[in-house]
């Protein structure tokens, strides 16, 4: 049952978006977020929406995946909408009942904010849908590599992330085994009151942690045996090569961003 959990949300494919250099994809995503937040009117938002939809169509990932990505944040969206709706005091009053006051400005902002956040979620999901977690880690390592100069442990961080990714399926499998073992001994995991279940969870977590520490110890020895000594002087099997299409994609994004900024100023 635990096996259903997917880590990251990579959606394998071979579209243009999939093939973009992950470093460029991260930079483009950051520019995209700036784009969404720099435009203050609906026209800017429309430009952002065109960009998002264009990218989604190019990625060839079914639209329902993006609807799914927004779902978990539905409550958050609702709260955002409500706060903007009820606490905006500027504008013409549309409805006034006891202490509740709704203004046209309030309606306007809440719609605007919700659309903006939906676009934000869809756009950033596109990054994780089209890039595998391990590639993403790699790209982050390379993008952050200038920070090494100020002694920021970029390589170590990336190594920790990739080892975590490597061991997630292993630990899930192990959790499954421990759960069965504890159930066989009469532990109640799925039944009982909340507190009993929480208490019984300890009987799963303790062995899991002990085993994780043992694994970490063995892995460290195995890494040492294979001459691991940190990031210094390392070469990589995975080569990230930027192609013309990466620069084109970046260029298009910058144009969109500039357009949004100009539109925001004009109207």
């Amino acid at each position, binding site marked *: 049952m635990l096996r259903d959990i997917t880590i990251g949300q990579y959606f394998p494919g071979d579209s243009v978006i999939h093939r973009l250099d992950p470093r460029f994809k991260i930079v483009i995503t950051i520019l995209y977020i700036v784009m969404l937040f720099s435009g203050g009117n609906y026209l800017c938002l429309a430009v952002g929406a065109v960009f998002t939809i264009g990218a989604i169509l190019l990625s060839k990932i079914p639209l329902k995946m993006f609807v799914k990505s927004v779902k978990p944040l539905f409550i958050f969206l609702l709260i955002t909408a409500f706060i903007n709706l009820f606490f905006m005091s500027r504008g013409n009053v549309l409805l006034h009942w006891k202490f509740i006051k709704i203004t046209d400005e309030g309606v306007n902002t809440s719609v605007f904010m919700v659309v903006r956040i939906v676009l934000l979620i869809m756009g950033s999901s596109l990054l994780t849908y089209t890039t595998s977690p391990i590639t993403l880690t790699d790209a982050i390592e390379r993008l952050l590599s200038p920070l090494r100069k100020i002694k920021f442990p970029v390589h170590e961080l990336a190594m920790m992330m990739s080892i975590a990714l490597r061991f997630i399926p292993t630990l899930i499998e192990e959790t499954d085994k421990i759960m069965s073992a504890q159930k066989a001994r009469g532990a109640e995991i799925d039944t009982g009151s909340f507190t009993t279940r929480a208490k019984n969870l300890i009987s799963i977590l303790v062995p899991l942690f002990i085993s994780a520490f043992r694994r970490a110890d063995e892995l460290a020895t195995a890494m040492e*045996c294979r001459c691991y000594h940190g990031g210094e002087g390392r070469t990589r099997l995975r080569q990230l090569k930027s192609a013309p299409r990466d620069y084109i994609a970046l260029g298009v994004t910058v144009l969109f961003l500039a357009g949004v900024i100009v539109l925001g100023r004009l109207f």
Partner: protein
Amino acid sequence: MDNIIEIKGLHFSYETDDEEKKPVEVLKGIDLDIKQGEFVAVLGHNGCGKSTLAKHLNAILLPTEGTVTVDGIDTKDGERLFDLRQCAGMVFQNPDNQIVSSIVEEDVAFALENLGVPYEEMRRRVDDSLKAVGMYEYRLHSPSQLSGGQKQRVAIAGIIAMEPKCIILDEPTAMLDPQGRKEVLATIHRMNREKGITIVLITHYMDEAADCDRVVVMDKGEVVRDDVPEKVFSQVDKLKAIGLDVPQVTELAWELRKAGCDISPEIITEEECAAAIERLFAG
């Protein structure tokens, strides 16, 4: 042939964590030479110090007393640590706990990345090693999709990529199913035969030891027997005294001999045993 591994008067002890700090002596004076290209099995009961010995061969542990030299490099020589570890690769029991990357080929490349091997050379060595262990078509898979035996072969490929002269395997088949064991053993034997890599196989499976050139038996931190498998296994009572079994056919021959049959005690394979018993009936 030259000795690739030379162990002289190796003692190893560690202090216990309790208050008395009483040192525990794990290895009590081991002398052992292993020749280039040899296939040596190290046998012993749990806790006899065989894993500790293995960890001395590539400087994971350093001797308390005595010296360990691998391909002319003293394991205490910190300056040549990476040369040493490149020369003597090590494979461990649990395949899951020695695979670093979530993509097979990147895991095989791990050691080469650490050593700073340039890309073209690395690509070639990774592909060659994966082909050598028969895992090339799985190069883009995730280790979690592989069986135990396949994972262990990937681990071996990761070591072979370093082009070592010697591979130390610490109970590599202990966690595998019979099919996985067969695959891994076949791979190790092929590496020994085709690439001339010296193999030190630490195991407690007697039948694995029976296929080797030489068997070293350890007990309580000492080497008690060191000979060809036929000679070692023929002394069934001595092996049993230190808690080890012998291959089933050897034991059968030994029992027959005790019962008064004229059969050689140096039988280690089923074929040999069948032939000898046939001769008994004929004669």
